[in-house]
């Protein structure tokens, strides 16, 4: 009997629950849009279940004592994401499916490679640090770099579009965990000269912000850094100074960089009653018809969901006509949350956010259980990065903060994001297994 309730068996049980939910999700999309999609859609559910069972089997072998909730929750989030992406455009869902396969393969590889002791990563910390910086500046390179939606975050290699910033996030967390574990005693003394690294990283983040025109990534990296610094040193003053520096930098960026200025203006005044200058057309227009139409339509999408939502497959994302017009550009990446909120309503959106909260709670529990500094910092850093990224994109969509285009972990369409988050998941499971094995 004990074997039945073992950690991995529970994981398998939860995965089965997720499999059923996925099947129900695809079935409702199929029913709602019968004329447009085929029975093949149910194949997705079976395929995903098989994929996650494979991931489970690897976990069973490599990290038998790891937390049993994280993998099913990641499975649920990817399933919700791919169901909605499928509903928005079946061909994108196929690509997303491929990326999830790649993500699961890399997840399995990471578990198998590092199952003896992932702490070897500590020895390569500067490799990770340099790697993170290289990845971050890749989009700036002339041939491969690409500007999308005003921010330079993409790399184009052959048929692939990558957002290397996503992988840089994971690399940065590994580097910081190792670096801070080593330097924490020194930093904790709080001498002025030891503030050097803080300033270097602040400068780095500001550079990222300026170079990529992207407030969100800057906030994400700097937020992760401050959280990990605080965990390592217990000095709240660092956090206060850090936030002050970030606000100062952000203010300068607001003053000097047109793109950042525009994002903030849109955030504060998305609607105007009088016509204002419209940079896209060069003429005058109401701001909701010009710069902020994406945000405004996304808010309309969320609001129209109401309490119970339109139902999967029943939402409105296209203005019919010749040709039909997409209501919200980037709806399956940056704005996937507003699509989900319209179709699932407050009940569904809140449930989705609760899954994110549970994921964060489990991740932080692993950090608490781990017994060495590197493991604690790594688990807490990965989890906090996951939480902060969720907050930045959903908070942007909900107008809590200025909107910046980053992905919703596991849910948004995008290969690099899926891969990076599976590596993040592998890291958490590795730490969890080790903490539970001793």
């Amino acid at each position: 009997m004990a074997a039945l309730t073992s950690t991995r068996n529970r994981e398998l049980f939860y995965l089965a629950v997720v499999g059923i939910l996925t099947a129900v999700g695809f079935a409702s999309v199929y029913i709602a849009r019968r004329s447009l999609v085929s029975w093949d859609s149910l194949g997705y559910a079976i395929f995903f279940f098989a994929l996650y069972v494979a991931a489970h089997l690897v976990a069973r072998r490599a990290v038998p004592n790891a937390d049993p909730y994280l993998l099913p929750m990641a499975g649920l989030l990817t399933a919700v994401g791919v169901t909605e992406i499928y509903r928005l455009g079946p061909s994108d869902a196929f690509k997303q499916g491929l990326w999830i396969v790649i993500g699961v393969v890399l997840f399995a590889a990471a578990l198998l490679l590092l199952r003896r002791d992932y702490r070897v990563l500590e020895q390569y910390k500067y490799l990770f640090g340099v790697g993170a910086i290289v990845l971050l500046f890749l989009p700036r390179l002339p041939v491969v770099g690409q500007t999308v939606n005003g921010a330079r975050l993409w790399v184009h290699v052959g048929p692939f579009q990558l957002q290397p910033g996503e992988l840089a996030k994971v690399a940065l967390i590994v580097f910081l965990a190792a670096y801070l574990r080593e330097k924490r005693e020194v930093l904790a003394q709080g001498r002025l000269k030891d503030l050097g690294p803080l300033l270097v990283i602040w400068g780095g983040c500001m550079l990222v912000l300026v170079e990529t025109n992207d407030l969100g990534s800057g906030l994400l990296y700097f937020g992760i850094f401050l959280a990990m610094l605080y965990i390592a040193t217990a000095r709240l003053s660092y956090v206060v100074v850090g936030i002050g520096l970030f606000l100062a930098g952000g203010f300068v960026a607001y003053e000097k960089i047109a793109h950042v200025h525009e994002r903030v203006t849109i955030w504060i005044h998305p609607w105007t009653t009088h016509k204002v200058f419209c940079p896209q057309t060069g003429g005058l227009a109401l701001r909701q018809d010009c710069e902020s139409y994406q945000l405004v339509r996304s808010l309309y999408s969320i609001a129209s969901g109401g309490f119970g939502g339109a139902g999967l497959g029943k939402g409105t994302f296209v203005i019919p006509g010749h040709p039909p017009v997409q209501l919200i550009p980037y709806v399956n990446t940056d704005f996937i949350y507003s699509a989900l909120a319209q179709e699932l309503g407050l009940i569904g959106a809140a449930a989705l956010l609760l899954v994110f909260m549970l994921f964060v709670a489990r991740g932080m529990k692993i950090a608490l259980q781990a017994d060495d500094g590197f493991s604690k910092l790594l688990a807490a850093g990965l989890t906090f990065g996951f939480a902060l990224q969720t907050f930045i994109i959903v908070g942007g969509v909900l107008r809590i903060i200025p909107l910046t285009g980053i992905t919703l972990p596991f849910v948004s369409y995008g290969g690099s994001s899926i891969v990076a988050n599976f590596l993040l998941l592998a890291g958490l499971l590795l730490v969890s297994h080790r903490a539970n094995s001793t």
Partner: protein
Amino acid sequence: MNKQISRISLFALLLLAALIVATTYWQAWAAPGLAARQDNAIERVAQFEIRRGLIYAADGKTVLANNVRRKSAGQNLYFRHYPTNGFASQVIGYSTQGRSRAGLERSENAYLTASNANLGTIWQRLTDRLRGATITGNNLILNLKVGPQRIAESALRGNCGAAVVLNPKTGAVYVMASSPSYNPNLIESNAGYASILKAPSACPGSSSALVNRATQGLYTPGSTFKTVTAAAALDDHVYGPDSGFYDPGYCTEYGQRISNALNPDQTAESYGNVNFLQAYEHSINAVFCNIGKALGAKRILDKAKQFGFYSKPPIELPSDEVAPSGLYNLQQHRLYDNPAIVDPGRLAFGQEHLLVTPLQMALVAAGVANDGRVMVPHLVKEVRSPGGSLVMKTKPQVWKQAMTPKTAAILNQFMQAVVTGGTGTQAQIPGIKVAGKTGTAETGRPHVYTAWFIFFAPADNPQVAGAVVLENQLNGFGGAVAAPIAKQLMQAILPGASKH
């Protein structure tokens, strides 16, 4: 490190909890406001999956708006069609994908899309949704009468102006016409929309056919406003119906002479000794100027407010398609309410920055007709479910108590005198006692007037009341150009009125 990790966890969870709070805000709290916004394309498109309710004229048979079904991306979409091609266009309005909605299509959208909160409709919508059936909206039956509305529209054609006719006892609006008009079927396409905007018009400068002149058009009321001034004087017992006045042909205000209307020989009319009725019957400005000075601007404006001035008449149209009447700052086009800076003599005969809507002046006449009570004007008679059962029926409701019944009875006599022997004789209908008041408002351009006629009939048991206004009338006096249209409308509606 665990203490810090716990704190960071708490912080991270609070960040995510804030997202749930914000989602709740947008989906529960802010949702109705966003759904009502004109630029909400999602709401608009989603509503095209709903088969909107039909709109009928008062006969319950003439269809003013229906739907055309088209398939798009595997969905049934319903597009609006207006079979009458421009009957009461500004009142019905339009519902399009590209250009949002206007008129009753906008203000009664909840009924038309079955999203009103009546229990029967909610149940219907729920079962439709669970069955996957198309949601069908409720039908509107208006008070507009087909024949009289058509008469008003053709009488106004070629001019800019408006006509409103309603039942003074119930507030039911029988006619609401605004000229120039447009064909709502043209609104959706860019070319059609441009053709409406560019159509040549009788009143350059304020030509938009999209404007509902009956409720939004702001005009100088001229002498029709003497009705309000007289009501103020009678109600406050400053003058009685038998008060005598001397008319020298002018009135002196701030040391300057304000002349009466001119005789054909270019001398000012002068009536000498007259009583109150005669002053009203012949619309003598000099007498009303002195009455205004005696009353003061505040009393006149207070009386006007009792008639509904300074508030929007609570008719079923969208709030921004109804304008309040009152004193306007012409530069800023904004209402102001300060009797201290108004010339009471000129105010008394309806000049002096006073701007009114035809609907408001129809309500003034209706107030006199209905013993001093102004009823809430209603365009909608009833709302019925697609199956035909009654969802809502409009009940007559008092909006304002404008004056005492006694004052109303006196003014009734005054207004009858205008038609029997005064400035409004062209509104006479054999066998029916008609009451009315002309207005010929100065526009600032020589010999160009805004011509008015406000009326009700039969005077002993009023069934209709209304206002007709024509803009830009060269030497056109209210009694000569507006009164005949009013006569046609009364004849069309009143049973037993001879039609010749």
